[in-house]
């Protein structure tokens, strides 16, 4: 059959790509084959626009057990154990149906982790939305948060951290990125491989319905009215089914009856079948007639492209079928034999014995199109990077600016969000959400893991290269604050339409910067996910390359939190403050601007700072640590007081910035700065250590009293009751939702 243009367009394939398919097959594809190519060659599965850039990322290291290419990455955490982790996006589904979109996003990443033989022990999520003033945005936020809670709470994996940010660019295109980490024996990591001709292929989990057909191609198309037609039946998550699958699969993995296993995520049965085959250099043959179906009259095309959730594909050793079936039966799951491994390296799909698709695996994986898309420096940059403070008129006086920033949703307490998440189940959570990086202990060892996801999209927008470096620095600094040595990272690259040279330029520069920073800080990237086409009616979200960093804490008894510990502690500022206001939260909140040049970043200093933090935590010298991010030093000091009932007084030297001097000094966002507290008698020791480490450090005040007091060169600029500031900060986000409650 020759395809007319509408058919190709509906399948997100270009004429050139179609011709390539014909050439590869040496014939016209069947309709089922066309569907298979369309999902496997979609941006989401093929990484056709991003691959050439991703290749440049550092993915190896002393501790790396599994880099990119499997369902998740893995790093060695000692004592024979591995941390298996990955982040993935579910942006588009979450916009269409916030609750289910977010819920199935959680379900998907959890499967990626236990597919590797690891027991998931922690979830984080990185979220971006439009302004909370907008009722529709509030509805989306409520739905997404409830969906994450509904799935994670039910399956019993604690959500120990994450981030949530607000900017108008996300109004029509929210970002929902979910990170999951699991623990396995280092030598028991399981691969998504099909091998051994004649080995049976099993399907287990939920029945296949028409849900999410072309979800993968949709995740590769921007939003516009036309999407309405493209809209697939929304996928509904079943956390109970996933919990059964999780336990049953981990039990099966204890036997040696398993050859390989893979979840059916994006592109469902199609993706798992050909990926497992190609990883094992084998072929896989299945008959769709054997696939459990939820709806009647489903075509092979629909069955192969369905994105029904909670399904797994297994290759089992011949002769061991019963061991596997018995375990699934125990969990009231029925593993169904749907095919076998072959030697011909092809994906062969039959329908009641009749071949409906036969494609060499490489055509769908390694030989899928790869594009070196044209790039061009965006026109907006020249103007946006120009920032003249004089043109801004009068700055806010410090005490008003502090109040405004504490109440700004990007800064305010996220308690409204994380109190809906079970963050304690499994009794490993040493640092709960809101206290810095999430920290979970690893019961099998005496160690703990610090986890953080971060990205400041404004910085990336104003300088993709440096912005991505700052994201790496912030995420790893956060785990270092908790006492964790950064040992691995995953990333989720959320950008606009890669066919626009200016977006592609943002992407390329960001990946470049990310790679450079990870090399300098010695943090291998073991996997991740790319989400492109994050645009609504032609306008893109802020470029948002989210970093998820894993930090190793050698001694679980030596974990450091955000909050000051007791009155009399000396407050030390590590790092150097410069007159840097570009891209700051202050400019955004007070002047409504995303402007200027992001803060400078010296990666060697950053590395030295992080080493110092880890050392100071391990020795017990550092009592609390909180990094300076949105809102700068003043916000960091205030937040270090919250939840403690302890006030603080600091005095810092003023920076030179004309009549913006106070603002820049207190609210500037210079990088590589951390506020720590130490026992008074140990302050000198820390300052000496810092000097030795080459980290600028200064004692700037003391903990105590019922107020937050800040002065510049001895001149008092802020003196506010702690309770008052804490109230502003802790109730701001809640207040947006008072009126509206989710209906479930």
């Amino acid at each position, binding site marked *: 059959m020759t395809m007319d243009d509408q058919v190709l367009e509906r399948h997100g394939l270009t004429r050139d790509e179609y011709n390539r398919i014909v050439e590869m097959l040496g014939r016209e594809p069947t309709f089922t084959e066309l569907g298979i190519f369309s999902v496997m060659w979609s941006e989401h599965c093929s990484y056709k626009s991003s691959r050439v850039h991703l290749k440049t990322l550092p993915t190896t290291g002393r501790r790396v057990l599994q880099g990119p290419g499997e369902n998740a990455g893995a790093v060695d955490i000692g004592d024979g154990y591995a941390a298996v982790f990955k982040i993935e996006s579910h942006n588009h589904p979450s916009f269409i149906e916030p609750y289910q979109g977010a819920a199935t996003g959680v379900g998907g990443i959890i499967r990626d982790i236990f597919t590797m033989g690891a027991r998931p022990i922690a979830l984080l999520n990185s979220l971006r939305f439009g302004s909370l003033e907008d009722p529709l945005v509030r509805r989306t936020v409520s739905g997404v948060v*409830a969906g994450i*809670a*509904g799935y994670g*709470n*039910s*399956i*019993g994996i604690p959500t120990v951290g994450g981030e949530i940010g607000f900017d108008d660019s996300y109004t029509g295109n929210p970002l929902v990125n979910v990170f999951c980490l699991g623990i396995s024996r280092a030598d028991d990591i399981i691969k998504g491989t099909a091998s051994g001709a004649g080995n049976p292929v099993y399907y287990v989990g939920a029945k296949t319905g028409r849900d999410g057909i072309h979800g993968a191609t949709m995740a590769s198309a921007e939003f516009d009215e036309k999407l309405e037609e493209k809209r697939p039946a929304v996928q509904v998550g*079943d*956390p*109970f*089914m996933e*919990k*059964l699958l999780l336990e049953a699969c981990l039990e099966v993995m204890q036997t040696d009856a398993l050859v390989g296993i893979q979840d059916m995520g994006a592109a469902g049965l199609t993706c798992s079948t050909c990926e497992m085959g190609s990883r094992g250099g084998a072929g896989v043959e299945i008959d769709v007639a054997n696939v459990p179906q939820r709806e009647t009259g489903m075509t092979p095309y629909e069955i192969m492209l369905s994105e029904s959730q909670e399904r797994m594909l297994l290759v089992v050793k011949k002769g061991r079928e019963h061991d596997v079936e018995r375990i699934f039966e*125990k*969990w*009231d799951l029925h593993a169904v034999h749907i095919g076998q491994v072959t030697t011909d390296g092809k994906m062969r799909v039959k329908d009641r014995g009749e071949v409906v698709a036969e494609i060499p695996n490489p055509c769908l994986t390694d030989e899928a199109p790869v594009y070196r898309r044209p790039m061009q420096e965006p026109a907006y940059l020249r103007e946006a990077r120009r920032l003249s403070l004089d043109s801004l008129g009068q700055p806010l006086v410090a005490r008003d600016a502090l109040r405004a920033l504490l109440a700004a949703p990007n800064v305010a307490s996220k308690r409204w969000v*994380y*109190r*809906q*998440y*079970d*963050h*304690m*189940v*499994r*009794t*490993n*959570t*040493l640092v*709960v959400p809101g206290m810095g990086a999430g920290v979970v*202990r690893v*019961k099998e060892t005496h160690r703990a893991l610090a986890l953080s996801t971060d990205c400041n999209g404004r910085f990336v927008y104003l300088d993709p290269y440096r912005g991505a470096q700052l994201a790496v620095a912030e995420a790893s600094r956060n785990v270092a604050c908790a006492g964790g040595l950064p040992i691995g990272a995953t990333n989720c690259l959320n950008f606009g339409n890669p066919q626009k040279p200016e977006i592609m330029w943002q992407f390329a520069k960001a990946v470049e910067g990310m790679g450079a920073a990870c090399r300098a800080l010695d943090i291998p990237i073991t996997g991740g996910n790319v989400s492109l086409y994050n645009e609504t009616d032609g306008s893109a979200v802020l470029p948002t390359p989210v970093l998820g960093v894993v930090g190793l804490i050698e001694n*679980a*008894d030596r974990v450091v939190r955000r909050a000051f510990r007791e009155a009399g502690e000396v407050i030390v500022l590590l790092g150097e403050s410069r007159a840097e206001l570009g891209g700051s939260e202050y400019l955004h909140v007070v002047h409504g601007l995303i402007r200027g040049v992001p803060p400078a970043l010296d990666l060697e200093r950053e590395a030295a700072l992080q080493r110092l933090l880890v050392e100071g935590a391990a020795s017990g010298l550092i009592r609390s640590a909180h990094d300076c991010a949105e809102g700068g030093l003043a916000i960091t000091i205030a937040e270090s007081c919250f939840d403690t009932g302890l006030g603080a007084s600091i005095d810092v030297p003023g920076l030179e910035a004309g009549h913006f001097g106070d603002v820049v000094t207190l609210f500037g966002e210079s990088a590589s700065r951390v506020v720590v507290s130490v026992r008074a008698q140990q302050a000198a020791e820390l300052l000496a250590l810092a000097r030795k480490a080459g980290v600028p450090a200064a004692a700037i005040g003391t903990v105590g009293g019922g107020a937050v007091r800040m002065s510049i060169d001895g001149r008092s600029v802020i003196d506010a009751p702690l309770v008052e500031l804490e109230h502003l900060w802790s109730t701001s986000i809640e207040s947006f939702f008072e009126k509206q*409650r*989710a*209906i*479930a």
Partner: protein
Amino acid sequence: MKFAVVVFPGSNCDHDAYYAAQHVLGQDAELIWHKDTSLKGADVVVLPGGFAHGDYLRTGAIARFSPIMQEVQRFAAGGGPVLGICNGFQVLLEAGMLPGAMLRNTVLQFRCEHVYVRVEQTDTPFTAACAPGQVLRIPIAHGEGNYYAEPDVVDRLEHNRQVIFRYATVSGDVTPAANPNGSLNNIAGICNETRNVVGLMPHPERACELAVGSADGLVLFESVLKALSHGAFASAR
């Protein structure tokens, strides 16, 4: 002393209860699959938290039909101590082993946070080691912990001193503000008439080590050791 921790499909605090009994308390503990028909000679039975059967339909509604529940009923009827935590409490309610039912939290949201509960009665196997009026800092994690029963039932509970835990302030005052879910009379936990079956919404098993934020929950497990070693609530083995 041997703890049996029942595992329903969808239980997810089973390992936490097991860990508390086995590793923190240093006692024997065994996970018992819901299709089993024997409690394997346990002295104490714990129905753990989680989402049995996904909490579909109603919390605990389907779990009560699990084969093991007949054995749990028999064990309880013989005076054996049974503790239902969160979802386990909900199962006990649905099974009719404790009176009342759970409604959605009045906030209509899941709530996970530390709360304070006041120990109202110490003559149960799970509060025997508590001081009367003792205030415990224990986390909750539920969306349906809003305890309800008909007025006469509540009166009977109060009259029989079957309300064992109440949500309270840090100083032990029972106030509306201290009530996280809308439960009648700030009820956080109750017992049956023979006082050997106790259910509560907060998670004592999550509060057994200071490292995870509180060790206040351990006293419930220590209580049952004390109670049983004193021969009270002899198990129904």
